[in-house]
C-alpha cells in the first residue's frame, strides 16, 4: 500500500511537469500579453515598454522563462504578480480561505443531501418520491450555473429582497455570523443544486446494482434489519463510484467556482483566476494552474486509495 502510494506519486511528477509546460505554452500563445493594458495611456512610450519587459523578464527566450519559473516554483518562490506586484503566494493566500468557505460548504451540503436522497430513490425505485427527485434533479442538472445564479439573484435578491445580491458580507458592518450565512446561501445553492444532481443519479444507479446482488439476500436471510442491510451492505459497496466523483470534486475546494464566484462577486480563487487571465498575469495563472493540476492528480490517487478501504478485494500492485 505504502509502496503503491509512493509509486503513484513518483509517476505524477512527470505528468505535473508536462501539464505546467503545456499551460505555460497556452498562456504565452494568447494574444495581448501583460503589457497590453498599458497601451491605452498616450504617454506610454516604446522605452517604457522595453523597460517593463525587462523588469518582468519577458525579454528572455520562452524556454528560459519557463525554466526560471519552474526553478523558483519548486523552491516555493512563486514569483510576483505583474499587475499587483504582490507575491503570488500572498494573493492565493488571501483568496483561498474564501473559496474553501464557499466550496467547503457546498461539498458538505452536497454529500449530506445527496447520500440519503440517492439511497432512498434506489430503495424506493419507481415510487412517487423517486420520480419527483429524478425530475427535479434533471431540471437543475441541465441548468447552466450562470443562468441559475442570475435567476436566484433576480428572484430572492431583486424581487423578494430576502437575500443580498452578492459579496461575502455586508460592507461597513462588524463581523456577523448571520450576515455571513445570508451571503452564503445563494452562491452555495447555485453550485449545490447543479452538482447534487449528478451525485444523486450516480448513487442511485450503483445502489440499484448492489441491491440486486446475492449477498443482499444473504444479509436479509441472516436476519439483519433493513436499515443495516441498506447502510452497511448496500451503501458501502455502492459507494465506490460515488467516492470517485466526490474525490474529483475535491480540487474545486482550491480552484473555486469560476462562474459562480464571478456572478456573486465572491472574492475567491475563481475570480482571482479570471482577473489574472484578463491581465495576462502569467505568474498568478501559472501558480494557480500548477496547484490545481496537482490537486486533481492527488484527488485521483485519494480515490484509488479509498477503493481499497471500501472494498478489501481490491489489491494494489
Amino acid at each position, binding site marked *: 500500500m505504502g509502496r503503491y502510494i509512493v509509486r503513484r506519486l513518483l509517476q505524477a511528477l512527470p505528468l505535473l511537469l508536462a*501539464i505546467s509546460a503545456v*499551460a505555460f505554452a*497556452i498562456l504565452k500563445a*494568447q*494574444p*495581448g*500579453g501583460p*503589457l*497590453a493594458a*498599458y*497601451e*491605452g*495611456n*498616450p*504617454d*506610454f*512610450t*516604446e*522605452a*517604457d*515598454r522595453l523597460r*517593463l519587459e525587462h*523588469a518582468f523578464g519577458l525579454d528572455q527566450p520562452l524556454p528560459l522563462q519557463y525554466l526560471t519559473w519552474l526553478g523558483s516554483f519548486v523552491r516555493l518562490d512563486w514569483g*510576483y504578480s505583474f*499587475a*499587483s*506586484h*504582490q507575491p503570488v503566494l500572498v494573493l492565493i493566500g*488571501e483568496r483561498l480561505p*474564501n473559496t474553501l468557505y464557499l466550496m467547503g460548504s457546498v461539498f458538505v451540503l452536497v454529500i449530506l443531501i445527496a447520500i440519503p436522497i440517492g439511497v432512498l430513490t434506489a430503495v424506493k425505485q419507481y415510487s412517487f418520491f423517486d420520480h419527483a427527485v429524478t425530475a427535479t434533479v434533471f431540471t437543475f442538472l441541465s441548468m447552466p450555473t*450562470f443562468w441559475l445564479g442570475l435567476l436566484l*439573484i433576480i428572484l430572492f*435578491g*431583486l424581487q423578494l*429582497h430576502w437575500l443580498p*445580491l*452578492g459579496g*461575502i458580507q455586508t*460592507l*461597513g458592518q462588524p463581523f456577523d455570523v448571520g450576515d455571513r450565512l445570508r451571503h452564503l446561501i445563494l452562491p452555495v445553492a447555485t453550485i449545490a443544486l447543479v452538482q447534487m444532481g449528478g451525485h444523486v443519479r450516480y448513487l442511485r444507479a450503483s445502489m440499484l446494482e448492489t441491491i440486486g446482488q446475492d449477498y443482499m439476500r444473504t444479509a436479509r436471510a441472516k436476519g439483519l434489519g433493513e436499515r443495516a442491510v441498506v447502510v452497511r451492505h448496500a451503501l458501502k459497496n455502492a459507494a465506490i463510484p460515488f467516492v470517485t466523483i466526490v474525490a*474529483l470534486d475535491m480540487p474545486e475546494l482550491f*480552484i473555486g467556482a*469560476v*462562474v459562480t464566484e*464571478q*456572478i*456573486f*462577486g*465572491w*472574492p*475567491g480563487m475563481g475570480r*482571482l*483566476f*479570471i*482577473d489574472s*487571465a*484578463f491581465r*495576462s*498575469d502569467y505568474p498568478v495563472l501559472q501558480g494557480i*494552474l500548477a496547484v490545481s493540476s496537482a490537486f486533481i492528480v492527488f484527488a485521483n490517487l485519494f480515490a484509488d486509495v479509498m477503493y481499497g478501504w471500501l472494498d478489501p478485494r481490491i489489491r494494489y500492485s
Partner: protein
Amino acid sequence: MSRVFTFAFAIALVATACASPQSTPSTSSAAASATAQAITRGGTAIVAIWQEPSTLGAPYGNQTVLGLVINGTVEGLADTSNDGQYLPTLAAKVPDVANGGVVVKGDKMDVTWTLAKGIKWSDGDPLTSADIKFTWELWMKDPKVNTRTGFDQIESIDLPDDLTAVVHYKSIYAPYPRNFSSILPKHLLDKEADVTKTDYVRRPLGTGPYKITEFKSGDSITLEKNPNYRGAPDKPYLDKIIFKSVPSSQVALAQLQAGEVQAMWNLTEAQTPDVEKTAGLALQVVPGPSVERIEMNTAQNKQYTDPNSVHPVLGDIAVRKALLYSTPKQQLIDKLLFGKATPGASPVSQGWAAYREPQEGYDPVKANKVLDDAGWVKGSDGIRSKGGVRASLTYTTTTGDQLRERVQQVLVDEWKAVGIEVKITNQPSAVFLAGSCQANDPRKLGTYDIDMFASSPAIDPHSTMLRYHSKRIPTQADCAGENYTRFKSPTADAAIDTAGATLDLEKRKASYATALKALNDAYVIIWLYNRGSIDARASALQGWQPNAWRSFTWNMQDWWLKK
C-alpha cells in the same frame, strides 16, 4: 488532466462573456444644488466599482479605476478643473511664465513649485519639497513604474527650502503642471529597496481627505477620514467611503437599484434608461474627452505597409468623403447611445485647445454625387468600381462590443446604399488595440482598411496631436507612432512642431487648430461621437461636481449623505 482543459475552457468562456472593453470614466453632474441645503455630516457611502484596482501605487498602475480609488488620498501639485484649467492642489499656485514660476532658457526650462504652508501627510509628518524630489527620483529609479514620460525630461531638482522645489527640465515640456500628479512620501519610502513589495501599494499614504485603511482583495477598499487633512475638521463630511468590487456593471447597477451601494462607476449609455426610471437615483453625465473615431487607411492594406503607397480604394479622397457624407452621426447617437453623446469634430474635444469645427453632415445624395464625379461607377450589384477596382473594404473594431457591433451594422447598410461594400473583420481587443507590431495590431502594421476605436486625449493635447504628425507613421523600422491613417501633411507637421516648441497657450491652440483643419480636410478620419462619462448615485448622496478630466471621486471631501 482533461479537467484542467475543461477548466481552462470554462474560463475562456466566462472571460469572453464578461469582457467589457470600454473603461473610460470621469465625472458627473445633474444635481449640484447642495450648497443651499444644510449639510449632514458623518455616515458611510459605498461605491460599486466593476473593475478591481490591482495596485493602489500610483507609479505602478495602469487602470482608470486606480485613479478613481486613490483620488481622495494621493494628491498632486496641481489638478485640472472641469474646463481644463490647472488649479493648485498641494502647491500654493500653478507656476507659469506670467507669474514667473516658469523661466525658459533657450531649449530648456526651469519650473519653480512652492508648496502651500502647513500641509501634512495623513500620519502627521509635514509635506516638504524633498517629497517632490523623491517622487521624481523614485519614478526614474524604479524599473517597474508605468511610464516615465515627463519625468525623463527633468535634468535635476534643487530644493532651496522646505517648501520650494526648482525643477530643471532639459526640454520645453509643456504638460509640466500635471507631471507631479501623485506626490510620494519620502519619509515612508526612502529606505525601501523595492516599493512594490511594501504595504504602500495596497494602502498608500497621502495628503488627501481620506486615508486607505483596508484593502480586501476581490472584495472592498475602505477609506476613513484623514484627521490631518488640511480641510479638517470641517471636511471631509463623510466618515467612511467604501469601494466595493463587483463583477460587472450590470451587477453594480442591480446593487445600486437595491440600495446596497450608494454610487456606481461607469455605466454604458444603454443602462441609462434603467437609472432614469428608478426613483431615488440620479445620473451623472459629463462630456468626457473620449472620442470614438473611424480611421481610413490611405496606404496599401498589407503588413508593414509603405507609408508612400496608395490604397486602391481609400487612396481616393472622393471615397473617403463619401464615407463621411453617408455616416449618420446624430442618428447613431439618438438611437444607439440614448442621446448621451455629442457628434465628434476632432480628437481634442475638451479643454483649452478644444477644436469643435464640425465635419460635414449626413448627406447621402452628396456622397453619391462625389463618387459619380470621381468616376466610381455602380455595377449590377449596386457596388461601385473604377478602373477594375471594386469599392470593397474591410471594417475592423473590437469583437464582442455590443455598441460597436450595432454601429457597424448601421454603417455597413448606409455605405452599401451609396455603393461601397464593407465587410466586418473584427478582432479581439487584445490584438486590435495591442498597440504594438509584435502583437499584430493591424493599425500598427497597416493591415486594415477602416478601423473604429476610441481614444482620450490627455489634458495637454500634445501627445494626442503627435498622432497626426507624418514622423509618427508606424513602420517596420520604427513601430512607435500612432498615425494609423498614414496621413502626411507638411502644414500639419509644421503646426504641431510649432505648438510643441512654445509655452504660449494661445499660439499653441492656434497651431493645433491649423493642424486639425488640415487633418479634417484630408477626410481620413470620421469623428463619430464624443462619449460622455456616465456614473450614477443615490439622490441622497450629495456634493458631486462634474469634472471632465477626472473620475467622479475627484471631490470626495465635499460628498455628504442626506438623511
